């Protein structure tokens, strides 16, 4: 587990101010790191937790990649939405990188390879995964361009579909984080919050 992030220490003398950073008086040691005297049982449990963490990161990365593909497909079908969608897509890309940055997200790391080049996704879970925002099939088009299949032709419907996908992903992450390891839970909560904010913006624009 990575060490906790550095505390936001106040710069000058401490004043009672509205939004001062608070020094971390504790090191929020992830629960997984607290095992000391390991019996075989402890080691096995620890290994199981590490596996579960990797799987959840991989699933989260896949879900974010699926959202990324939706953004690309929607942008291809509705270029006039670029002003709204491009920043949201960029944030989604950062989410993918955050879930894969220790090389544990599967599918070869950061999302240089989105649906843009039509690269097949051999390691995808079968369709019908319970809580991912699966795009419609053939959202990745022939080589050279993202497909637009599955994106509603009408602008507002396309935005609503994206918003629904973001909301579904956010809800899934919110469920998953409850039992995740601490650092991943924090990341999932943030990404879920970002997704909810995206859904809000997409809904407002429709």
């Amino acid at each position, binding site marked *: 587990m990575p060490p906790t*992030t*550095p505390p*936001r*220490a*106040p*710069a*000058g003398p401490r*004043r*009672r*101010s*509205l*939004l*001062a*950073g*608070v020094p971390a*008086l*504790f090191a*929020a*040691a*992830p629960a997984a790191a607290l095992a000391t005297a390991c019996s075989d049982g402890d080691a096995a449990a620890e290994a199981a937790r590490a596996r579960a963490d990797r799987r959840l990161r991989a699933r989260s990365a896949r879900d974010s990649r699926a959202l990324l593909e939706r953004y690309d497909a929607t942008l291809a079908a509705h270029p006039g939405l670029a002003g709204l969608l491009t*920043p*949201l897509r*960029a*944030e989604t890309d*950062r*989410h993918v990188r*955050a879930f894969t940055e220790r090389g544990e997200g599967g599918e070869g790391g950061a999302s240089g390879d989105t649906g843009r080049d039509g690269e097949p996704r051999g390691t995808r879970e079968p369709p019908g995964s319970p809580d991912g925002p699966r795009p419609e099939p053939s959202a990745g088009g022939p080589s050279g361009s993202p497909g637009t299949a599955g994106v509603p032709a009408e602008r507002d419907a396309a935005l609503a579909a994206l918003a629904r996908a973001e909301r579904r992903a*956010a809800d899934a992450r*919110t469920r998953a*984080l*409850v039992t995740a390891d*601490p*650092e991943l*839970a*924090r*990341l*999932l*909560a*943030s*990404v*879920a*919050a*970002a997704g*909810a*904010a*995206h859904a*809000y*913006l997409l809904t407002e624009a429709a």
Partner: protein
Amino acid sequence: MTTSARPAPHAAPAAAPAPADVLDATQRALRAEHAAVYGYGVVGGRIGEDRRKEAREGHDAHRARRDALHRRVRDLGGEPEPSAAAYALPFPVPDADAAARLAAELEDRVAGVYADLVRAATGDTRREAAGALREAAVRAVRWRGGSVAFPGLAERPAPAGSPGPATGGASEL
């Protein structure tokens, strides 16, 4: 409520205290909500008529969160940190635009403490903290007009030049 600017120190918990980190993270969240309640009072005083209702809703929501955290600290065996009588604002708030910026800033900071509380907590406390983070992120976007990639994560700031707020704050505000 004390008139001094210094909060009363919170007593060490007595029997069966919660792990120090979750109690501490909860106190920090409470501290941030006290500041948010105060800050939204300022927002309400300066915000334009068109957003007054929104400001009131934000104010109410943060009061409710503050009260819930107050109870939660007690449940954990701690002494809830009181609000200060007043807080220094991070920047002057002379008009409606500044008031909206202040509201966004308040939500960003609240998001930060809830992200940390998610990490420190488990079960229902974690679930609630995640919900509070989500609400803060959506409110921040409403006030600011644009989103950020990682609400609440100071170590993952928006890229320079983007419309996101300058978080990651060592800034003494």
